[in-house]
């Protein structure tokens, strides 16, 4: 009987991302002793925090069945301007404030085009991705800016916790609480589940959508800030292709592109860490570094594949019954 089989299959599919994570982890743990050391695990966290933060913002957008391709550009732009300011002799603190402001404005710009003028998020953010990277390159003249003083912050440890991880955790907690413990958060899910019904129920659709793009912009900026503090330099490749990494992380964490389904914790975090773990793991087993994309992309594919299978199985289970069979 197909239903019963599906019932057994579903739990497995539900937790596909977790299973993947554990699987990859144990593989590397077995392959190399160095992988399991505390320092290395902390390293993984540090390296994944930047993408993780951006991915958290991306999750908000994906939950509303939207998409934000401009996050990489936002990272670059905010970092570039921060760099200019610091080189121009402005205080680091002020520069960081500027970064956040830029993230906010950028997000608001996207949101305006999407909610006010009703253009597809894909196109809007594609265009602002173009413009944003161009603008940043214009500002930097594609020059590398070395800001060694920032590394102090990036490598600092507050009560033993590395700065990037600290920021990561802070953003994560804030996002998780917002999504699970506030009306806005629940409305985000509602909109993603059925925009029309949400409107009928009297949820302010425009405001919810606007906010998620602003949030995504903010997270991107903060992610850029963290990366900047780690690199201590801004190069023209800064934040390049990060939009894809962020989307991948969210999707790996079980977030659906069709909206309404996904969690920042554990989901997106697992995804982000998983991505970094693969890179780090391959490194510790000193595998050919070029092989990295060949490993990560099948994992992404697998995650989505299981999700779509799960979806079809659910459809099977949920087919409307119109008669009660006495024998069931």
């Amino acid at each position: 009987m197909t239903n019963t089989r599906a019932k057994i299959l579903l739990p497995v599919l539900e937790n596909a991302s977790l299973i993947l994570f554990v699987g990859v982890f144990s593989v590397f743990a077995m392959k190399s002793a160095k992988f399991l050391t505390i320092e290395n695990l902390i390293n993984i966290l540090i390296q994944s925090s930047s993408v993780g933060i951006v991915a958290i913002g991306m999750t908000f957008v994906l939950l509303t069945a939207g998409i934000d391709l401009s996050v990489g550009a936002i990272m670059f732009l905010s970092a570039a301007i921060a760099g200019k300011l610091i080189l121009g002799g402005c205080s680091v603190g002020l520069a960081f404030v500027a970064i956040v402001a830029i993230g906010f404005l950028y997000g608001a710009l996207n949101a305006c085009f999407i909610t006010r003028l009703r253009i597809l998020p894909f196109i809007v953010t594609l265009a602002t991705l173009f413009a944003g990277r161009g603008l940043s390159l214009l500002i930097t003249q594609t020059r590398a800016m070395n800001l060694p003083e920032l590394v102090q912050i990036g490598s600092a440890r507050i009560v033993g916790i590395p700065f990037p991880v600290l920021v990561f955790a802070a953003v994560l907690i804030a996002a998780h609480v917002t999504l699970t413990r506030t009306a806005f958060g629940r409305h985000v899910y509602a909109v993603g589940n059925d925009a029309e019904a949400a409107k009928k129920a009297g949820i302010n659709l425009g405001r919810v959508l606007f906010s998620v793009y602003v949030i995504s912009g903010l997270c991107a900026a903060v992610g850029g800030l963290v990366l900047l503090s780690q690199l201590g330099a801004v190069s023209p490749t800064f934040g390049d292709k990060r939009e894809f990494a962020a989307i991948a992380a969210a999707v790996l964490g079980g977030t659906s592109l069709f909206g309404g389904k996904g969690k920042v914790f554990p989901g997106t975090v697992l995804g982000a860490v998983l991505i970094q773990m693969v890179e780090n793991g391959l490194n510790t087993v000193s595998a050919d570094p070029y092989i990295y994309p060949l490993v990560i992309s099948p994992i992404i594919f697998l995650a989505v594949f299981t999700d779509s299978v799960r979806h079809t199985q659910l459809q099977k289970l949920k087919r409307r019954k119109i008669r009660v069979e006495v024998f069931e």
Partner: protein
Amino acid sequence: MSEVILEFEGVGKSFFGVPVLRDVGLRLQQGHVLGLVGENGAGKSTLMNILGGVIPADSGVIRLEGEAHAPRTPAEASRKGIAFIHQELNLFTNLSIAENLFITTFPKRRVGGIPFLDRRTIREKAKALLAAVDLSVSPDTLVEDLSPGERQLVEIAKALGADARIIIFDEPTTSLTSREAERLFGIIERLRAQSISMIYISHILGDVRRLCDDIVVLRDGRVVGTGAREEFSLEKTISLMVGRSIDQIYPLRATAPGEEPVLEARSVSQRGIVHDVSFVLHRGEVLGISGLMGSGRTELARIIFGLDPIESGEILLNGSPLGRSGPRGRVRRGMAFLTENRREEGLLMDASIADNIGLVSLPAFASSLAKRIDHVRLCNAAEEVAHSVRLQSMGITRQAAKTLSGGNQQKVVLAKWILAKPSAFILDEPTRGVDVGAKQEVYRIIADLAAGGAGILFISSEIEELIGMCDRILVMSGGEIRECIERGDFDRERILRAALRENASA
């Protein structure tokens, strides 16, 4: 004698100049249940949509506790204490029951200025509401894990949560099993006891007469009968519902059905959907399938057309079994399916009329080798069919399907299939959302097709049109065929009774 809480007076509404409500007046008393009955298209839903703030009325007034009531949005209506429980439920399946109950009215608890959800209060309130509709599941359960019946109860609980004074039920039992329905009735009784007023819309007259204090019968947007339950025998209600002289609407069926079978179903079964369905459709025959929503008529059609899986039994077209072949195989073999959902399954809304009409028969107009489409021939053919169904349009190549009226859209779908010259048509609610004038033309087209030798499976919830058009009528309920009635002894009440008969095996 309790006082009137809601009153309609001279309410009228029309779409595309076609009146769907004419001078409707009715009164709902505090703590009463008002039964609203009438055939599809009688205007029940329109009336309730006006009350629920989904659409505005053209004329007339509604008084809620004496003062005028004209809600602009559903939200406003619900603020005024009117809860609308739609046929298709408006719940967010990815959220928990508790969250659905308070989606716009979350109790909050400020911590450092940030308004957090007060989850304890929410859960407790939710528990209380669920208890009120005796639904014994945790408020944290996701709605997607609930059965349709349980979801219905959640909707009711939501209404109570918004302390509604008037609750509108629109066909609440269609997707419920008899057990779930019983449960619902129990709740309704209790709400009445709490002197909450309700409007109950249903085809199932038995339920209506059992639940309601007063009954209002609508026909063609007019109130044709109103009064206390006692005054309405089943017979009287039915005759009021369908009491229209029918001969002028329906075309004369000149030809008699032929002998050789076109479409044949042999004990078709699918667990939980249909059970042991068999029938034969002959050349030139119009075979009606009557049944209420959720009787399995649409599901049967989808199985026959190969859209849904079939567990046992077989289906033959022109004598050859169809096996597992999907819609494509059916179409190639000469079967047509006009679905009940024109917008989502029938038309390419943004495409031109010509593209829509041509869609099915494209292969016929493609040269064998390069599969190049002969546009001239295609357009001429499309033109022809469009003309034959009397489609009104400004140029079939220029106008997009979505800009047509409901009637003309339906004609486009028909034309699409006619162009492919199939031998068997399955028409599911072909006159739904179509004004009376267009209805007549649809009937004419069906008659012509039958005269042309095609077999037609005519599915409808309007008994009247089946009686007007069919050679035989199969009556379905609970996924089974209850009766097969010959044209000679057609009888509305007999059909309705069969349609209302409970699922034996439940």
